[in-house]
């Protein structure tokens, strides 16, 4: 019997495949279907502090602003007494999912201010989340702020969150750091329990006809896995934190690769959004089949087997790979 179990943020999971942060959790029926399909954990979609704040202020502006301004109309919309602005709906959904499924539930928070991080992290913990994923989606645009300062601020926030809650914390990173291994080491030092590699940064497109920006949401494809594999392979030998691969996992073999590169778990979103919750069971079956066919005894045996420390040709992960690839491509042309 192959041991599929693994660990993520100190939680024991029955296997390494579960959905990443996504709107899949908005519907309780879908969450139950994910459980039925065998998902080993549920990750909430990110609570976006900016979005919450923007919506509260919009309500304040468009509902309270015009109120009591005109003799005939003290307001323009019904009283919103029992409407939920702010994190309530999100927190209720955390609690609801906790009650509905027998799986670890991982909250996800995308904050922008020290106050917001702390406040919402606490609330998510109180709502019953087993762990918390902090999404460090930051776009430093100020030329006066050096990279070290950005990293310093992020670490500050993470330390404060760590101190304010008891549940384990994962950090979801972008790949864009001057020295990702050094930053990761600092995160580990700060007590972070796991890393999610990587955030998929939704990039706006340009509309060249209207000279405007277009918001586009594109699902991941398998090409995105390669970036994750490389960094999982580079980072995993140096850290005791558990690592999740997020982005580009569409086939069972992708799960295998992610684990081999050093992940303990894989998060899947695009594939599930595309094919439905049953995708989890397809991936799981495929993983199990691979392990059987290749006579692996456990996930532990697989995990990290192809990382920088253990793979046969570590230079493939390094800079020379770029040179080789370009040369072969040129030659092939």
């Amino acid at each position, binding site marked *: 019997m192959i041991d599929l179990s693994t660990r993520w943020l100190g939680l024991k999971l029955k296997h390494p495949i579960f959905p990443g942060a996504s709107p899949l959790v*908005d*519907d309780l029926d879908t969450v139950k279907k994910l459980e039925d399909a065998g998902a080993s954990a549920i990750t909430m979609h990110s609570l976006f502090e900016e979005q*919450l*704040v923007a*919506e*509260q*202020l*919009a*309500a*304040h*502006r*468009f*509902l*309270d*602003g*015009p*109120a*009591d*301004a*005109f*003799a*005939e*109309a*003290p*307001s*323009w*919309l*019904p*009283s*919103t*007494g*029992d*409407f*939920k*602005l*702010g994190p309530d*709906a999100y927190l209720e959904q955390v609690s609801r999912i906790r009650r509905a499924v027998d799986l670890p539930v991982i909250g996800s928070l995308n904050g922008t201010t020290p106050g917001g991080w702390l*406040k919402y992290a606490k609330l998510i913990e109180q709502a019953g989340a087993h762990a918390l994923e902090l999404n460090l989606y930051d776009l430093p645009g100020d030329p006066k702020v050096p990279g070290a300062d950005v990293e310093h601020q992020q670490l500050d926030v993470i330390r404060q969150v760590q101190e304010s809650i008891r549940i384990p914390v994962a950090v979801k990173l972008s790949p864009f750091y001057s020295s990702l291994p050094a930053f990761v080491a600092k995160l580990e030092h700060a007590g972070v329990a796991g890393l999610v590699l990587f955030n998929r940064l939704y990039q706006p497109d340009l509309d060249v006809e209207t*000279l*405007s920006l277009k918001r586009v949401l594109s699902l991941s494809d398998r090409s995105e896995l390669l970036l994750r594999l490389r960094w999982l392979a580079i980072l995993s030998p140096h850290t005791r934190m558990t690592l999740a691969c997020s982005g580009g996992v569409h086939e069972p073999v992708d799960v295998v690769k992610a684990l081999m590169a050093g992940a303990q778990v894989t998060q899947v979103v695009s594939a599930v959004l595309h094919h439905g919750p049953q995708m989890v069971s397809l991936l799981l079956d495929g993983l199990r089949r691979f392990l059987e066919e290749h006579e692996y005894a456990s996930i532990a045996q697989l995990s990290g087997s192809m990382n920088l420390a253990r793979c046969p040709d570590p230079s493939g992960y390094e800079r020379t790979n770029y040179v080789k690839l370009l040369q072969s491509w040129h030659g092939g042309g």
Partner: protein
Amino acid sequence: MPSPRFVTLDANEAVASVAYRLSEVIALYPITPASPMGEACDEWSAASRPNLWNQVPQTVEMQSEGGAAGAVHGALQGGALATTFTASQGLLLMLPNMFKIAGELSPFVVHVAARTVATHGLSIFCDHSDVMAARTTGFAMLCASSVQEAQDFAAISHAATLEARVPFLHFFDGFRTSHEYARVVSIDDDTLKGLVSDEALSAFRARKLTPDAPVIRGTAQNPDTFFQAREAANRWHDAVPGHVQRTMERFAAATGRQYRLFERFGHPEPERVIIAMGSATGALQETVDWLVTRGEKVAGVVVRLFRPFDVEAFVATLPASVQRLAVLDRTKEPGAVGEPLFQDVVTALAEVGRAIPVIGGRYGLSSKEFTPAMARAVFDELNKPTPRRRFTVGITDDVTGLSLPFDEAFDLEPPETVRALFYGLGSDGTVSSNKQTIKIIGEYAGHEAQGFFVYDSKKAGAVTVSHLRFGPRPIRSTYKIRHASFVACHYAPLLERHDVLATAAPGATFLLNTATPAERAFEALPREAQRQVLEKGLRFFVIDAFKVASQAGLGRHISAVMQTCFFELSGVLPKDEARARIREAVEKAYGKRGSEVVERNHRAIELTLANLRSVPLGSAGSGRPRPPTVPQAAPDFVQRVTATMLRGEGDLLPVSAFPVDGTWPTGTTKWERRAIALEIPTWDEALCIQCNKCALICPHASIRSQLIDPAGLTAAPEGFVTTDFRSKELGTAPSGAPWKYALQVAPDDCTGCGLCVQVCPARDKATPRHKAIDMAPVEPLRERERRNWAFFETLPSIDRAAVKDDVKASQFLEPLFEFSGACAGCGETPYLKLLTQLVGDRLLIANATGCTSIYGGNLPTTPYTTNRDGRGPAWANSLFEDNAEFGYGLSLSVEAQQTQARLLLTALANQLPAALVDGLLTASQDTEAAIAEQRARVQALKEALKSLRGDDARRLGLVADMLVKKSVWLVGGDGWAYDIGFGGLDHVLSTGAPVKALVLDTEVYSNTGGQQSKATPLGASAKFAVAGKAQGKKDLGLLAMSYGNAYVASIALGAKDGQALKALREAEAFPGPALVIAYSHCIAHAFDLKLGAEQQRLAVESGIWPLYRFDPRRTEAGEPPLQLDSPAPKLKARDFMKNEGRFRLVELKDAKRYAALLDAADAHAARRRALYEQLARVHPVTKERQP
């Protein structure tokens, strides 16, 4: 007796709370000022709040007050306890059912926030003309004078009607009482239960219509029996006063508040007595108390039960000492011997043989103030040897001399009452925070408290004035504050337009929100204000509230800042406690918005304390004098009358200043120049592609384009910008030079909405953020643009006959609708402006009541204007419900006069040039050129008629202008067209008459605050559809198409302006009825209206708002009459709905239901599309194409 629980609320809420708990069926229709009662009931019902019998009342919105009355009538017959709320015209629409309900002795209460019935003009304000029109219905009429009484009498009337079986009309004064915030003792459920007789309730149930014990009601009766049967109910009516008084006794036993049918106050042996009812009795009682303490033998009698009028109880209030009586009526009955209460009093005295001289007077029409000075004037009149038998008080009647003089300066308010006045902008939260302040002081500090709020008639840049009183003693001052101990001006520019300090009492505190630092604040005041500060010895403080609010992340929402300042300076509460209470109030008010809003307001409170400054006073005369209210160039009437009203001094105008029949000059908004924009568009002529879309979308006609003959630019001020006109289509200017093009903003009339910039398609290639127009702060530009605008206005209009028929060219036509008081970013007004550009000089508008009539015809200034020839839209509002019929009548009248003109012309043909007559009778008038030719012919005819003698020539002269084509348009919103006026619209469309309807569809009742109509779309939250409307929007266009003889179009200017223009042109040209339904984004949709055009595009592209034109003329050409002008939906409903608060609220309330509503909205759009596609392929059978 339970210990009293104090609450602070207005009468609407207090009454609704009682009525709701004592009802099972509540049928409603929104009307000012009664709407909040229905809305409160609907919200409680939506929240499943039970009534006294643990049942959630059914709250239903009907299509009109007539419908609401019919529904409650049916509910009563079915044995359910029913109620409704209404006012004014709404009550009049209920009258037929009220006769029936009373005739059938059905226990029922209608609660009326008394409001003026429209006569020479409409008024949303208070008098008793509506309830007096109902006094023949057989209803008992119980009048409350205060917020406390309104609550208590609601309970008493519900209880008494059950026992009396006679239905009740419970009324209180609209706005003055309905909207007054006051500290009152609430009534708990047990008290209410104790009032209601189980026995009477059981008897009511037993009388219900049921097939289990069938009876018949509503029979038709003949002369032999009707009369006697009508008299059969006499005893029930006779018994009402006894029931009411007994209920009042029971109420007193339960609450300690004793009321009587008539109550006298004042001297025990009065010689002079004033009789009145309603809120005026508050001021009357104050005056009586004051006079009695000065030894005068005066008293007042307040009438509570007006119908049935209990002679015995009334006369008992008048001791033998009474020598003279004055009766005050808040209504006017032209031609009557006296007003209703006066007549009842005279009759009652005659009945009992009391020969007391009685004089009668009118007061308070349309909420005209009734003050102690006026009450004193009436007592003074009674003291005269020969008092006037009929009088008015509160105005200066210099025509018929009826008015009593009164001392404007008279003040008797006790000094311990804190009186605070706050001048704010509608959008700054001043009124909302003052309501909180009253609650804080009333409920926490235990003071008596009163708040009354005055609004101007504008929706953009509205000015509000809050009148707050606090004190240890009951507050009976039912009039605006005349001497304030605290005056706050929340927007410094108001000092330029209003005499803000006129009401400041000596030694008062003056708080000003200004960006000017404290050390320079005094010298920045207008000279007049400086003088007042010094002469009255005011304490002067400033704060830069916009800066503080902005620092706290609240934009321009300064309410918490100014509220904090008030408590700091007024000393009403200890400072620490005040701050704590403000913080609590913020949490209560904004907690539902989320913690961020609360925290930012808390931050604002903290920042306020560090920014409030005392102002050192300087010397008088260092400031600039206040600018004239209107420019010198304004006409005499505007100078004398309009300007006085604009200054807020309309009360001072005498009767002689006014037209006798409600006829006013048009085109007066241009003199107002409100200067409310903080930013205005600036033009980069090099970048501009001259598409004119900015001018098209501008809701206030404050950005305009013009073609200019360079020869006319010699007088242009420095900085007036033009550029070469890019198109050759108009050839050269009259001087032979190429045309120049200019885009000009009216800096004092722009509202700064930003719609123009949003729709501007011309971006700078290198810096696309920069467009051909960008918004920029107004102040550095104001003076230059004022000069430019003044010059722009002098430029000659382009020849209408020369311009092409496209969107760009349409904006070279002069708009004859400008600078209205509509909301900044309004989605309705661009259509009206375009209509006036197309046909404004021959346009008659019948305007349904609603937003369109308020920004279209609410004084002091009105936006429909004239061209240089003095022609422009003639506009009238009849009612809400009858607009189509009213416009049809206008059309018939036009037709009648045109027929008359043709007959006379034919009769005089042999005396006139044959070519002229032939041209006048047969010219097509299908183009602007042809119309211009016809105008020339009419002018020639008038010249020719001068030399003719005889009646025919004279009569033809009177109607000759009608030989130029006229255009009658019905204008209104969806509440009119889809609901209350649908029957009339339907009928008028069926007649085939050439009447055109422009429905400005905001999908809710916008003017009364966003109640759902049958135009409200699936998934939207609106009042009476709190959880989101589950039914699809009524397809008004499809219904109109079913006649086959009407032109029908659905348009959305922001989505496809060319189609909208074409539809309006085609509707105008169609030789029959036309209906154009125009998508109009609205403040009630809750989004940033500068994005209105974009939302219109999304509505169209998602299929939510299909564009089409249905032209019956195409049938004859063998074409399907319906043409679809928008493609099949390429977006989902979500893409449109996600951007608007009205949908988002539904999602927040129940995401799963919202998801289902989104699917339903897509399905609804798809079904509608499929149906239209089929219809667009239908080739109707014609004579030529028989099967």
